[in-house]
């Protein structure tokens, strides 16, 4: 089939772009500690060493070598998962911290995106369908409002209300018990702890997707195929969810991909407020402690997470929209 092969070609181009973006992340991550003002060597060797030991370590890290050799070393280390040793938690390898925390943040972000999309699509659809009516007004205005409330402030309020005044939910940690008899019990414990963080993050993004979906549907609803669907004898709900939502979704998905970067930023704030031991909190702690190896690694992984999510969103887009890679 011609369209399948052009779709493949399209995906191939996109994959190439994502590989390029991955390379860009590698380069930027290498450059940040080296182009920033101040003595770069302090960023690779922790405090509390004698000058001699420091020079020794610098040599060991290859920091006395020419830049291109440093880059080559950095590449090898990064790609083999060697991010050095944490200054603040000396001598824990950075990778160990990351492995512990990455899944937690993935879960937090994944749950928030899922909730935002699952609720945002129907809410936006209803708002568009009832354009100008009271339902639309309520949905639209409250999305605008939730889009304006600072995430961290909402986090503080929710933590205070549901963790302190009415202590329904835990407001720190990722789990209550260190060990769990089964994955299910671990999962339940984790979900319980992430409840408030997920609600906080979802509020902002839910508002965004509701608004995006509404806008996208408003572009679709005047189309003839919607009028035809109505004329065919379908109920309003069948027209809306069976005919209008699917073609309105791809543009929303595109925006979703763009905004995943903001989601990572939200994770830093929300994890910090809820003392949720994920990547965001790790990054913030290491920023305060000037734990440069950890900063570098968390940045790298957060960027790669964003990249991966954008890629997933794009693959999904390609799958659900037959126009992509079409005959044009």
């Amino acid at each position, binding site marked *: 089939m011609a369209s399948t092969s052009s779709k493949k070609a399209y995906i191939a181009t996109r994959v190439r772009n994502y590989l390029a973006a991955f390379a860009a*992340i590698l380069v930027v991550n290498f450059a940040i500690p080296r182009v920033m003002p101040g003595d770069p060597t302090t960023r690779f060797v922790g405090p509390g060493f004698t000058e001699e030991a420091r020079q020794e370590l610098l040599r060991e890290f290859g920091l006395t070598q020419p830049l291109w050799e440093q880059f080559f070393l950095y590449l090898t280390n990064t790609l083999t998962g060697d991010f050095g040793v944490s200054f603040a938690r000396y001598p824990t390898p950075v990778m160990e911290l990351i492995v512990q925390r990455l899944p937690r943040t993935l879960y937090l972000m994944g749950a928030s995106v899922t909730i935002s999309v699952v609720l945002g699509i129907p809410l936006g659809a209803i708002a568009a369908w009832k354009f100008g009516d009271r339902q639309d007004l309520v949905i639209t205005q409250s999305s605008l409002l939730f889009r304006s409330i600072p995430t961290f*402030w909402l986090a*503080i309020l929710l933590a205070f209300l549901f963790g*302190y005044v009415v202590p329904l939910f835990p407001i720190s940690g990722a789990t209550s018990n260190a060990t769990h008899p089964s994955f299910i019990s671990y999962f339940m414990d984790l979900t319980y702890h992430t409840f408030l963080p997920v609600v906080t993050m979802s509020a902002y993004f839910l508002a965004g997707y509701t608004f995006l979906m509404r806008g996208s549907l*408003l572009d679709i609803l005047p189309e003839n195929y919607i009028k035809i669907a109505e004329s065919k004898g379908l109920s309003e709900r069948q027209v809306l969810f069976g005919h209008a939502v699917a073609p309105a979704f791809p543009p929303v998905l595109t925006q979703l991909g763009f905004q995943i970067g903001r989601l990572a930023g939200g994770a830093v704030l929300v994890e910090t407020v809820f003392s949720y031991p994920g990547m965001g909190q790790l990054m913030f702690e290491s920023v305060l402690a000037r734990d440069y190896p950890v*900063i570098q690694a968390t940045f790298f992984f957060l*960027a790669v997470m964003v990249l991966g999510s954008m890629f997933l969103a794009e693959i999904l887009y390609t799958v659900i929209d037959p126009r992509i890679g079409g005959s044009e």
Partner: protein
Amino acid sequence: MSNERATGSEPTSTAGDASRAGTRRFDRIRGFLHGFLTNRKGLAGTVLLGTIVFISVAAPLIAPYDPEAYGVGPALAPPSVSHLFGTDDLGRDVLSRFLYGGRISLLVGVTSGVVATIAATLIGVPAGYYRGRIGRWITTAIDMSLVFPPFVLVVVFAAYAGSSVWNIILILSLLSWPIPARTIKAKTLSVRENDFVESTEALGASDARIMRQEVLPNILPVVFANGILQMVYTILMEAAVGFLGLGDTARISWGTMLYFAQKQAALSSGGWWWMVLPGFGIALAAFSFILVGSALDEVLNPRLQRRTWGDD
């Protein structure tokens, strides 16, 4: 600029065109102002924003106390007649600090919003204008920039470079352009398809000239609405940087007020008044920008009815 499609081959009188274009532009501005101010969101947003700007500018005149002065009241005093919104842990008047605190939010939010929007326009327009390789390259560059999570980068930069107000503005400007650049590129693409752009092109105008004179005026509404909405994000980011204590803690801003409040566990130690007002200020500022931005969007890119009337 509403360029009609050239129907004849002979050049039309430029002077006449210019004056007609002038009247048309004037009519359009009047129509726009009317539409914007009769739009409920636009009006509410303008009033709200006006109020915030007013209190920030007039803070020295209306603040009851010196915002920096310690012990103008007892520490952590609840709201009272003398301290309408109570005091913080050092006995400073919360209301006075709140009134001053909006200055940084507005300065950082607006400045970096403007810079980012200009950058987004400079990058987005050529990305949509040039077909072929150049356009593809710029688009790829924009897409790549989207990969870097802006707030995360802000935090990283703050760790390395310190956090003066100008640093924050610089960083926020550098990081917030990619999403609006995408939107502007898409709009440029659609304007580019118009006949008048093609006909100007056929007349041999240079690319830069076409972009400036034909494309830019047509995408300006989008740029404008986008810029305002961008400020919502930069205001929220500035507040978040302050809240994490990575901002300039020597200056009063709503974000840093919340940082100190949170540090002293204001809520659980019963000092809710210290926490509520600054958060409210940030939300209100962001909300007023969102209202103005979406009203602009509605007026400048009318979608009118959700479904057009059946007729013709």
